[in-house]
Each structure stands twice: as structure tokens, then as C-alpha cells.
């Protein structure tokens, strides 16, 4: 199994290690509920170095990214910002979702998911070739995520000035960006392993709680953030995955991969909705959801530590109405459809 450079640290901290897409990663360090609550109310640190970092090289990086992605990197033109986008195939299917960071000096960095590392490397290299853009896979980089309402207190000594949401600060080969996967104020730190281990040790010695993948999943679900491979994959488009907003058609002259195919898929009958129920028991991925006139399927479901009820995402028809039902252990339970961002819809 592959391991991040912090593997032994996780074990020392009592991490319950599991196989995650071929990587030995901490699921939790004792209680995923405590970890979840710590991030919602205070601060926590995640090792997400299993994700993939690709640094671009060459004159035409922006042209390449404008062709590669449906979201338009021109939006952040010259600003030290980050941009979320899915990456599509020519049929408009979602290959992955990722964040592009502007590092300054006309240079960009892509951070994408773990399970798609190798596939993305070959796809990016293929698409980048005609643009003479090089793809440097930083496979041994450190990615830490410091997340929670008090995260700023622990990061402020490392950044020159306060950075607003989706901003990037890149100095001395340490990139700190105000991005994350929890719905909280937070920062992601990308640097080499030597520096990464210093950051990690510093946070841990200041009593920042390490957070495992189990809490990462409940945090992202409450925040309405999709998980690639679970809530969407190549058989889906941004339109049926609640991320239609990433398709930027403002520049009518811009061509990007999947653009033509998406024109026909724009009126997708299916959408990704949130649901919650007050009833006992957790509806999990794969469960069938029934509503008047049709049915759909749960893509992710969990017990929400913040709202103390069963929440999830489901792919259903646009006209699913407000109420649905499902069968859980031979019992019919009633669901309410909602916005996927439960931090908004249930607050």
C-alpha cells in the first residue's frame, strides 16, 4: 500500500488506518464525531497528501487551462486566486473535479483527487502537448488542510496578510490557499515534505486535533460538496451533478473540452439534490428514493454530527417535489428534499 510521508505520525497519534484507493490513510484517531465537531467549532488538521499536485510549465498555460476546463481560468486573470472546476471528456462526462491555483509568474498548479492520479497525469499530458505546456507531477508533495473557525489563529504567522476565500499566498515554495473541503474557514498548505512535516508537528504541538477521512466525509457532505467517484463520475455531467455553475459560457469564442456535447445535455432531467429525514437509521449510497412520478438513487448518505439527523445527496428528477420516501430495513421512511448545502438549509 502507498503511504504519505506522515504515515508514522498518524500511527503514533492512534490513527485507525485503512486502505483508501490503495493508500494507507487514517480513518479516525479515536472518534470521528469528536473530530467532526472540533472542525465545526474550533480547528483541525488533515493530511491529504494522497491527492495529486500538478505544476504547469510553459508560455501557454492559460490557453491550455481555458481549453481543458469548463470553468474559465480567465476569471482570475493575474490575481492570486484559486478556481474550482470539473474536468470533462469530449462527451461532457466528468473525469474529475479539481482546483487550479495561480501561483504568480504566469504559473498555475492543479490539485485533483487521489483515485484519479495516474489517469489525470496521462490526460493532462495529452491535452497539454499541443500547447507546449509541461505537466510536472509533484507526487511527493505535502498537502495539509487546516480547517475550522479558529484556523486563522494558527496560520496567521505564515501569511503576510489576511487572505480572503479562494485566495492564494505563495512564498518561498510554500503555497497557502484559503480553500478546503469542510464548509469552514480554512487553509490548504502545499509544500515539500520537509516543510510539510514541520507544519504538521507545529500544529499538533499546539493541540490542533488531527482529523481522519471519516470526519472529512461527514464535513464535506454537510457542506454540500460532491465527492468524485461517489456523487459523480464519467456517466454524469455538471448539469446533473449540481455543479452546472462551473460551466462558463460567457466568452462565446472559447472552445473547451466537452462544450459541444454539453449543449445537448443541458436539459438533463436529472439533478443532484440534498435530502434529510428525522427518522432513525441512515440511508446510504445506492438506496432507492421514491417520489411522486418517479424514483432516484442516493449517492451519499450519512448521519450528520452537526444536525443529528440523516442527510445525504440523491440523483432524482428535476420535478421530484419536496417530499420523497425510501425503504430502510423493511420500513418506509419519509424524506425532505433540500439544497445540498445543509449548513445553509438546516441551520
Amino acid at each position: 500500500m502507498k503511504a504519505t510521508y506522515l504515515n508514522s505520525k498518524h500511527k503514533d497519534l492512534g490513527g485507525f488506518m485503512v486502505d483508501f484507493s490503495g493508500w494507507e490513510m487514517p480513518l479516525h484517531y479515536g472518534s470521528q464525531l469528536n473530530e467532526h465537531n472540533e472542525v465545526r467549532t474550533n480547528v483541525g488538521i488533515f493530511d491529504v497528501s494522497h491527492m495529486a499536485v500538478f505544476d504547469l510549465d510553459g508560455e501557454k498555460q492559460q490557453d491550455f487551462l481555458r481549453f481543458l476546463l469548463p470553468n474559465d481560468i480567465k476569471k482570475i486573470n493575474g490575481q492570486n486566486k484559486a478556481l474550482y472546476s470539473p474536468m470533462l471528456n469530449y462527451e461532457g462526462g466528468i473525469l474529475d473535479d479539481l482546483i487550479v491555483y495561480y501561483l504568480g509568474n504566469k504559473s498555475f498548479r492543479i490539485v485533483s483527487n487521489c483515485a484519479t492520479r495516474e489517469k489525470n497525469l496521462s490526460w493532462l499530458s495529452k491535452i497539454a502537448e499541443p500547447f507546449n505546456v509541461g505537466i510536472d507531477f509533484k507526487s511527493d508533495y505535502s498537502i495539509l488542510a487546516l480547517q475550522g473557525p479558529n484556523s486563522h489563529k494558527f496560520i496567521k504567522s505564515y501569511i503576510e496578510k489576511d487572505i480572503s476565500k479562494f485566495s492564494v499566498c505563495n512564498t518561498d515554495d510554500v503555497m497557502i490557499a484559503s480553500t478546503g473541503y469542510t464548509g469552514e474557514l480554512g487553509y490548504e498548505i502545499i509544500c515539500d515534505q520537509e516543510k510539510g512535516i514541520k507544519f504538521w508537528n507545529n500544529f499538533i504541538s499546539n493541540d490542533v486535533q488531527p482529523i481522519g477521512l471519516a470526519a472529512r466525509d461527514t464535513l464535506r457532505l454537510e457542506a454540500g460538496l460532491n465527492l468524485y467517484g461517489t456523487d459523480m463520475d464519467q456517466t454524469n455531467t455538471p448539469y446533473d451533478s449540481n455543479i452546472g455553475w462551473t460551466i462558463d459560457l460567457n466568452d462565446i469564442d472559447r472552445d473547451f473540452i466537452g462544450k459541444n456535447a454539453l449543449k445537448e445535455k443541458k436539459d438533463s432531467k436529472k439533478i443532484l439534490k440534498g435530502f434529510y429525514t428525522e427518522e432513525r437509521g441512515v440511508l446510504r449510497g445506492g438506496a432507492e428514493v421514491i417520489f411522486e412520478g418517479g424514483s432516484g438513487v442516493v449517492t451519499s448518505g450519512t448521519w450528520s454530527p452537526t444536525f443529528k439527523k440523516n442527510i445525504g445527496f440523491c440523483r432524482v428528477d428535476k420535478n421530484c417535489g419536496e417530499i420523497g420516501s425510501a425503504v430502510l430495513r423493511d420500513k418506509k421512511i419519509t424524506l425532505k428534499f433540500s439544497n445540498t448545502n445543509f449548513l445553509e438549509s438546516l441551520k
Partner: protein
Amino acid sequence: MSDNEKNLKFLDSHEWARDDDGVVTVGISNHAQELLGDIVYVELPQIGSNVSQKDGVAIVESVKAASDVYSPLTGEIVEINEKLSDSPEIINSSPYKDGWFFKVKPQNINELDEMLDSDAYKKLSEE
């Protein structure tokens, strides 16, 4: 292993049982609660219901997964741990004491002998 744990009998499906003067208390093992992680729901059997050996009679659900809890013996459910409905986390913190699930009055107490002793269970759960 605690003394408490040594006196218990186990199923390979991770339930424990203890004979208290002819009434058998049943719960899930420490290993099982570790595997499940934070427990959020429990469904318990009805008091007075008749159960058969290896019937799924309760359900324990963590944030991660749901799992059946089997009765190690045939008999009648005579008591359930009502505290678990509101505070299922007791199972995580005290699987062998406060986190018990139900008590069964067995038809045949000798069915306990078919269960694993704590050493055999420990060996199995370490595999």
C-alpha cells in the same frame, strides 16, 4: 484483557454473553465497536419476544455502517437497555458494562457452551 472480559462468552459475529443466574446479558465486543466506529442508532428487540439462537434481533448503526446483532441463545427477551436509544455512544465507551443490549431468558442455558471463550475470540479477532 479485563477480568470482566475473561468471564464472557463470544460469537464469531462479535456478540458477547454473560450468564447472570440463569438470565443471559448480551452486548457487542470491544473489537466490534472499534470496527463500527461512533455508534449513532440502536434498534432493540421487544420485551417478551421469543428469539431463536443466531436470529438477528437488534441493529447497531454507526456513522459508517449498520450491522445486525444476533442472539446467542434461544429464549425470551426479558429486558432491554433503554439508555441506548438516547445515548448509543455508551456502546463505544463501555461495551462490556453499561453498553449491554438485551437480556434473554434461555430455554437451554447449555447453548452458552457452544460459544467461544475469550481467548478463542481474541485470537479470532486478531486474525
